[in-house]
């Protein structure tokens, strides 16, 4: 316990000897600080300061804030309805999850009951968003190992889902389609048809093709097995969330534990792995894709008739709610507070990627430099979500 508090999260930067160009020859005596990030092929808009001793990583310190938009503040300037455009921009990969969480929180405060059709629609969209996000996660995980085929194959499958979203809401990524009080558009038969087609493609073409090459790949296993191992107790202590937590053997899934939307009526499994290494996290992401496809099929089968949207009041009575949703990257918490006005008084977004990010310093101690991108990608983070 002490070790984390003092070494993992807190760096006493006693070895801040940076190497200038002239003394590169004296590499053996000093630590080399690499800036793994911001302008780097695999990092995204963040920076990891990596201190390396030869090929071995001594310590890592994340530097974030490059995509800070202060969404929590922006929401305070919006009305209850149009705050969704800020909430969905927490991460562009899976925006349905955040919108659903916000909407449920707002409905809880206002005491609005959502029609059943909207619940089912939310479920379908959330799972669609999860699939879209997980596909990119899979692709980028293999991508950091130097193979871009997986990403391309995943993007082909992703495209079908984006088409379905476009047909439903009119936009591919920033859909703004779930609002407090239901969903914004009538789910038409065309949308259902397109979604079914996308899932058919995913199950019949993508899964077999991908599973054969990139799940049971000997070189991939060689690189990722036993890398970045987090045991069960440690995962809880580090506060990991989402697929990395489940890969360490902790059965934690908000969809199962505190069912929201229509998840209580559908049958699905919580995917867990016991190993807790990078390969296990990769496998969890892949297995969850299958579960999501299953959920969407069930939701489409049991799609009820009726209204898709109820009226949401302009002014919401004072109150507060804490709502968790199982987002693609883990448990996303919304602490929403109303003061009786036309918009939220305060919204706190508890982001899963933020929690995952701060497990990096502890996980990356004493590994090889080549494992830095592997662990980074296996934690499956989104930068918009870290900075908000």
């Amino acid at each position, binding site marked *: 316990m002490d070790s984390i508090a003092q070494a993992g999260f807190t760096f006493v930067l006693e070895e801040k000897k940076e190497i200038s160009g002239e003394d*590169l020859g004296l590499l053996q005596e000093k630590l080399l600080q690499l800036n793994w990030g911001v302008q780097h092929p*695999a990092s995204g808009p963040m920076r990891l300061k990596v201190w390396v001793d030869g*090929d071995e990583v001594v310590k890592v310190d994340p530097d974030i804030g490059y995509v800070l938009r202060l969404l929590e503040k922006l929401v305070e300037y919006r009305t209850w309805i149009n705050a969704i455009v800020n909430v969905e921009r927490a991460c562009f990969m899976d925006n349905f999850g955040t919108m659903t969480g916000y909407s449920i929180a707002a409905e809880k405060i206002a005491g609005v009951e959502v029609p059943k059709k909207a619940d089912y629609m939310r479920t379908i969209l959330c799972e669609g968003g999860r699939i879209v996000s997980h596909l990119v996660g899979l692709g980028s995980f293999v991508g950091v*190992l*130097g*193979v*871009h085929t997986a990403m391309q194959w995943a993007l082909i499958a992703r495209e079908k889902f984006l088409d379905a979203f476009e047909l439903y809401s009119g936009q591919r990524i920033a859909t703004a389609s779930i609002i407090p009080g239901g969903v914004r558009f009538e789910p038409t038969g065309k949308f259902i048809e397109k979604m079914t087609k996308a899932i058919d493609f995913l199950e019949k073409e993508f899964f077999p093709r991908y599973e054969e090459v990139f799940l049971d790949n000997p*070189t991939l296993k060689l*690189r990722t097995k036993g890398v970045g191992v987090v045991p069960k107790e440690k995962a809880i202590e580090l506060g990991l969330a989402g697929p990395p937590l489940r890969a360490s053997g902790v059965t934690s899934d908000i969809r199962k534990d505190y069912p929201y939307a229509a998840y209580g009526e559908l049958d699905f499994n919580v995917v867990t792995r016991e190993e807790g290494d990078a390969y296990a996290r990769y496998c969890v992401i892949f297995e969850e894709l299958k579960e999501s496809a299953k959920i969407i099929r069930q939701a489409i089968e049991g799609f009820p008739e009726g209204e898709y949207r109820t009226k949401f009041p302009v002014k919401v009575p004072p109150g507060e709610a804490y709502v968790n949703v199982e987002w693609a990257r883990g448990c996303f918490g919304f602490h929403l507070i109303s003061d009786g006005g036309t918009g939220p008084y305060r919204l706190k977004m508890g982001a899963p990627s933020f929690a995952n990010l701060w497990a990096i310093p502890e996980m990356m101690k004493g590994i090889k430099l*080549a494992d830095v991108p592997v662990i980074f990608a296996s934690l499956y983070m989104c930068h918009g979500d870290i900075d908000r």
Partner: protein
Amino acid sequence: MGPWLKALIFPGFLFLMLVFLMVFYVERKILADAHLRTGPYYVGRWGLLQTLADVFKLLQKEFIIQRRANKLLFSLIPFVAFLMVAILVAFIPFSSSSFIVSTSFDLLIALAIVTSMPPIFFYAGWASKSKYSFIGGLRVVNQMISGEIPLWLSALAAAVFYGTLNHIEIVQDSSWLSFIVLLPAFLIFITATLIVTDRPPFDIPEAEQEVVYGFLTEFGGFNYMILVLSKLIELFGLYGLAVTLFLGGFKGPILPGIVWFLLKIFALYMFTFVVRASTPRIRMDQLLKFCWKALTPLALLNLAFIIFIKMIFA
């Protein structure tokens, strides 16, 4: 054609340029096929001129030398590297008549040139005075040295089998029997080639996600092009060597020798590209273990086997 004309045009400079362009194009197209994409499409018919356009783009770019870099070495290294690999290609017979030089120590010289590449790439990394380049340079030395031992040993097996170092003689002596006998040596040679020229899955020195672009990080524009070109030509030369030693060189029915030679090389390239599309990169320590614990002993065993065969048949 005189040797000078040859060096300039056919198996020489212009031909190498053409090969460079085509290899890039084919690599893109095949990778795109494996990705289920289209690949280059707009520039020229079937996107054939795409690489040429890229080359012209690179030529237009500014000649940037980092402030702290060793200016002389930094600007000299790409040309030295290119010269070295061009010499390597000079010894490869594309057909019974089209080669630039032919001596009785062809194979020895070619391998010696391959062996002298690591310091050049290391200097390229060191002279840029960048952390990423430096790590890339260290890695390239590490990797190439461990890859060259199996490369030498497997090439030596062929030399022992044929009893000569002259490429032309080797090609003329080759047959189906020699192909079968030398098959293990061929496989070792190809693996070692991938390691030496750091192609995926052994592209550890250039691992984008770790050290940006290895020793190539600081190079840009024309310098970058020449350096990449020399790496590509090195692979081409080594594949030429593989075809000459193990696959019967320019021998083949009906079609002229040069076509057969290029076809064989194309098949090897196909293999390389598909490997690139399917195999994740491995780690440095794993590579070293693989080289020293598996590949080198295998190559030694293979050499012993070839000597044994030679003793039986001689």
